[in-house]
């Protein structure tokens, strides 16, 4: 069985920052493994530990700088990694979900996984659409915002819990092959062990161009273009209640009722 996990290197921005053109000035950003993907990697590694013959492959769209982040996933137990990058891709340009899904789908077609795990969203762009778009392009089943997974590998069915709004959970079965977008909290992601870090250095990390995955630059054509980046104006509007919990809770309840939130 093969599990493909999409892994993104995301940008974390300091509390105070400056905008530089369409991005944040490099001085105020650090790169890290996307938090949701960390849970997706952990879920895949746990599958490989509980079932026989499971290969965990990660796929990332990103420049060579992303390799340190990819090695984090390898150190936590993924077996090998694929990194897609091409001269036609610009470091700073935003890739919309459909474009990303096109690239990831091309890799998925080559790898032919039984299960694809993605994060629900990325911590920087937060569009939350790549996973389901990928399933749509591959024509497989999917489940979004999965917070519990029980895989019946024999039957080829994933029993999942999906987190819906208002604290409601949907219990549903998804037939493989499928894409599941993984929610934080589904598991307790491990730290990479020193031994894992050592082993990760010699694991395969394959670099693929668009041509390598059977695409050309037209795959990057997108109707969506980023035109500006700006900081929304913030307005101060916080009300601070002071006093005992009994007093402040009453005041808060009053406000919520007045605004039509609590009935």
């Amino acid at each position, binding site marked *: 069985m093969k599990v493909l996990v999409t892994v993104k290197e995301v940008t974390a921005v300091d509390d105070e920052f400056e905008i530089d053109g369409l991005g944040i000035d490099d001085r105020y950003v650090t790169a890290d493994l996307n938090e949701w993907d960390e849970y997706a990697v952990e879920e895949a590694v746990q599958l490989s530990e509980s079932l026989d013959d499971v290969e965990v492959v990660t796929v990332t769209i990103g420049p060579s700088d992303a*390799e*340190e982040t990819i*090695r*984090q996933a390898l*150190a936590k137990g993924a077996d090998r990694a694929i990194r897609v990058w091409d001269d036609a891709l610009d470091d700073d340009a935003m890739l919309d979900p459909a474009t990303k899904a096109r690239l990831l789908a091309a890799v998925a077609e080559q790898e032919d996984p039984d299960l694809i795990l993605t994060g629900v969203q990325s911590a920087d762009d937060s569009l939350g659409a790549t996973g389901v778009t990928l399933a749509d392009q591959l024509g497989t089943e999917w489940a979004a915002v999965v917070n519990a997974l029980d895989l019946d590998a024999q039957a080829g069915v994933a029993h999942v819990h999906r987190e819906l709004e208002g604290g409601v959970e949907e219990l549903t079965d998804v037939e493989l092959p499928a894409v599941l977008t993984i929610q934080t909290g589904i598991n307790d992601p*491990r*730290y*990479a*062990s*020193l*031994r894992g*870090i*050592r082993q*990760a*250095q010699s694991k395969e990390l394959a670099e693929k161009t668009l041509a390598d995955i059977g695409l050309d630059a037209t795959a990057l054509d997108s109707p969506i273009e980023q035109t500006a980046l700006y900081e929304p104006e913030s307005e101060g509007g916080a009300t601070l209640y002071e006093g005992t919990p009994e007093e402040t809770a009453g005041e808060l309840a009053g406000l919520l009722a007045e605004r039509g939130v609590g009935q």
Partner: protein
Amino acid sequence: MDFDLTDEQRQVRDEVRRFAENEIKPDATEYDTEEKYPREIVEQAAEIGLTGANIPVEYGGVGYDTLTNAIIAEELFAADPGIGLCIQSTAFGADALVGFGTEEQKEAFLEPVATGDAIMGAAISEPDVGSDVSSVSTRAEKDGDEWVINGNKMWITNGSIGDYFVVLCKTDPEAEGRYNGFSQIVVEADRDGFEADKITGKLGIRASDTAELILDDVRVPEENLVGTRGAGFLQLMQFFDETRTGVAAQAVGIAKGAAERALDYAEDREQFSKPISEFQAIQHKLSEMHTQVEAARMLTYKSAWSVDNEDDQLTMLASMAKEFASRVAVEVADEAVQIHGGAGYVNDFDVERFYRDAKITQIYEGTSEIQKNIIARELLGKGMT
């Protein structure tokens, strides 16, 4: 010459930092005030291999070199020196077994430490024996196929929680020459006649367990002798350069932790309607602190690199690194409290603890005065006397 860490070393540093930030920092004050051994954190650290970082791969460890271990020490101590020491000290004394132990000893004593199933220690100092190691008086006498050990060992890290200790004993008092006649013997804590008294009220590193060991007719099998009978002192000396480099790395970590916290606080704290980091008096302090940290780190890295690559120059470098880095730790922690002002004088902020913790690095594993003696001895071309 290359001053860059390898990708692997960077990855180790970043992951240890993540671990330390999430698992060590949040509870550090509690373990300090209660003088409580952080068993759960040490177990977690063992799971990711931190307790066996320097134990060879064939005995369940990771087998990292001295430089990578220095990087690990720095990150752990920058989060909290007391808990950092608990994690790194689980393998105290292991170097003697790696260097001189038999295959059976390595399997029996190294593997459980690497996997987190056992904690060990090294027992050298005595109530009347500190810097003058060659006057150790704990006596081990052969009786049939057993060693019978009598004496007291003082300031023993992990003393009341450890499973076994490499104890420096006098086995051959009639041997000629003041460095001869000592032996290293493994003593298990569950032997009859073994008693440990926890020492409380330490100035710093209060999460770490320290005890006095009382050995009263303790019998251990003769195969617990490590290496050669009578050569214990010389065996011990072999690793001082390495262990001193390790303490230098701890000191760099303490200095770094204090300097980073001071920088954060200075940017946050406002006086006269602006952050105190806008004042040149504070800026100069921060500049000096961070420069000192970097200088101490470079000296420590060079010493660590020398352990692994160039041990001809090592003895002097290790003492220089240990003496300098520990002084930097004390000075930087002092300035960090100064920048915090009144807030740094209570334990609401970590720098209060770092100020207390820093001092030990000038004392254990050879005082600063002993390090200067060694540097001078090397400079003047004098041998050990």
